[in-house]
């Protein structure tokens, strides 16, 4: 495929995607509205029994678990790298790697 044909294809897609989207419309939702679903339906979804406070607690707890997990993972990888660096430094003659950064 030549660059010209590729550019034409990209232009066509760039025009078609918003056109299809606009054709579908955004009826039923205005700026500043939380969602399309009627307010009554939102408060008591059918079959929903988990208390809101539990769901909020799970959400907040999960975020902090992820952040803590990331920090621990970085720390462990850092420890491993530092060990390898120390090992190499011990084996290298003092003048070797003098230009090494850090």
């Amino acid at each position: 495929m030549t660059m010209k044909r590729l550019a034409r294809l990209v232009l066509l897609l760039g025009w078609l995607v918003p056109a299809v989207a606009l054709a579908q419309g955004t009826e039923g939702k205005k700026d500043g509205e939380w969602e399309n679903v009627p307010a009554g339906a939102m408060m008591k979804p059918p079959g929903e029994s988990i208390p809101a406070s539990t769901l909020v607690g799970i959400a907040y707890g999960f975020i902090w678990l992820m952040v803590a997990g990331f920090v621990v993972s970085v720390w462990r990888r850092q420890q491993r790298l530092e060990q390898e660096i120390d090992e190499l430094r011990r084996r290298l003659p003092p003048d070797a790697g003098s230009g090494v950064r850090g």
Partner: protein
Amino acid sequence: MKRGGLFLALVAVTALGLAVVPSLIINAPTEPTMGFIQRIFYYHVATAWLTFLSAFVCAGASIGYLANVGSKSAQRWDGLAMAAAELTVVFGTCMLVTGPLWGRKAWGVWWVWKDVRLMTALLLWFIFVAYLLVRRFGGPGSARLGAGLGIFAAADVPLIYTSVFFWRTQHPKATVVTSLDPGILLPFLLALATFTVLYVVLLWLRMGLETARIRLEDLQLAAEDAGLLDEMR
């Protein structure tokens, strides 16, 4: 201010924010339509914001890498892209988990497969998981491939943001923020600011790992020059 001092200041600001924001969220007025579950909003939007920010950081660093391939700074750009990609997956996971927890109570369903906002957000997460897999198992050349993937992935972010304007979705528009009660808006903005500083701290930490990796690679080269590498193997 030295780099170490700046880092400690950022950690202090994050700690202060994390101490203050939860009490503001608890004392914030309850949204009348959704009730208590709306409180997920404060962290869900913050993690979504960081996912998008991180995707852009990765794309910017990937461009920086591709523009500097062969030079010393390329490694730094690549390291930044890698760090940002990991954080995109971390905060993207938070966004994709907290959203359904909110949706279950508010919409009555965990997930809506036809919802463009939800699906494009999931797509972004998958692309960044693919990025990390490419970097982990791709072998030589994976840095360039990853850079291309990082730039491509960032193109999904405007699509996620604008999807609620173009398609009919369950998800609320971002314009909902402008109509918020001031009692909800203040904790929301503070949560957003705290999470942004937290992101900088985490990125900084992760970049420390990249600095160590670069130092190790330099030492390995020095060891190879000294003929020690074969001996060590």
